[in-house]
């Protein structure tokens, strides 16, 4: 799946995560999180896994996490990917 345009998903409300995705030639993940110290690496692993599952080879993803659980992070990143490929909207 190819990211064709910048897109966002999620919110910065408590227990949610705000995800921005931008087209790029490589993969980069940047995380701001209230729980970065305990879970930063875990969050990055989840994000990279979702990208891989969706066949995304190039994207810069940045997360502003307010303590979201894994399934929320997955859902938000997937939504951002869908929006970024620019076909099915929302």
């Amino acid at each position, binding site marked *: 799946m190819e990211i064709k*345009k*910048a*897109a*966002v998903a*999620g*919110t*910065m*409300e*408590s227990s949610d995560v*705000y995800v*921005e995705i*931008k087209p790029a030639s490589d993969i980069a993940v940047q995380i*701001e999180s209230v729980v970065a110290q305990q879970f930063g690496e875990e969050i990055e692993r989840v994000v990279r896994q979702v990208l891989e599952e969706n066949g995304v080879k190039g994207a810069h993803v*940045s997360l*502003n996490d*307010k303590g979201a659980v894994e399934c929320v992070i997955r859902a938000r990143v997937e939504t951002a990917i869908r929006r970024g490929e620019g076909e099915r909207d929302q």
Partner: protein
Amino acid sequence: MQGDFLQETYEGGLKGVVRRRVEEFLSRQGLRYDKGIQYTVVLYDRQGEVAATGSLEKNVLKCIAVDEKWRGEGLTATVVSALLSQAFQQNRQHLFLFTKPRNKQMFLEFGFYEISRTEDILLMENKKDGIDSFVASLRRGQGSQGAVVANCNPFTLGHRYLIEQAAKACDTLHLFVLSEDASLFPADVRMELVKKGTAHLPNVLVHPTSDYLISSATFPTYFLKEEQIEKGAGGQLDLVVFGQHFAPALDIRCRFVGQEPFSPITALYNKQMQEILPRFGIQVVEIPRKEEGGAAISASRVRALLAEGKMDEVRALVPDTTWEFLQSPAGQDIARKAGESR
């Protein structure tokens, strides 16, 4: 928690009853509903009262406020998230935010970083070191260095005179041409005409301003029509940004400006310049306007003449390079637009 609030979004500026209610709400917080706002989010509580609001004007988040009694409920996060996703849908990725200086910490948590502040306004952007990396990307000069910031809408003999005078007074002159596309002549055309019109001056470096000088973010009232400008609305913040970020990085010690006989907002800006820039060790030099036919040459005069179709008179006020453009199909299109918007 969020379920206790009803979220409504409004495209275009607010109108009627909702506008009055939001204006009232903001004024209680010491804020004004700015002219030029294009999108507003309002959260209502169960009684139907405004609990929180925020707005978007182009790429700037502003007029964000939460009712005292709902502080600590995370309503700002809801408002900011809604504004961010609207901005992204419009493909605006580089975003700015106005708030009161005391709210800095909260917006840091939403991924915004400080650019500059005055006593009562804090300007932030969603890129870490955004402004400093922009300034670092600009070509450096040498020796004694000065700057001119101008819209050049379009480039006239008046601009050329100002720049020639300024260029004589320093070793390198940095000439910033506004990047904001809010003028009759599009940004790329203005830039091109400036480059051609100053090509004979080897010590002039022409730069874009991105969103960082005289833009919707740093100086929103600059682009309003005269009758919309309220007293005191000025460019303090813009001047602080210049003094704090541009001048030290490029070693600019002097800012040249044309005397302003016409536009009240520019006249006010020049006056504020005299007050603020010296604090940053920058000298302000005002250069009298070049006259033609008994009146100062100005771009606004050129636009008015274009609108009236008085091309002979336009010819006397612009250099050959600008004149050539005005003769081209693209130039004639713009003249037609000027005529229609009269």
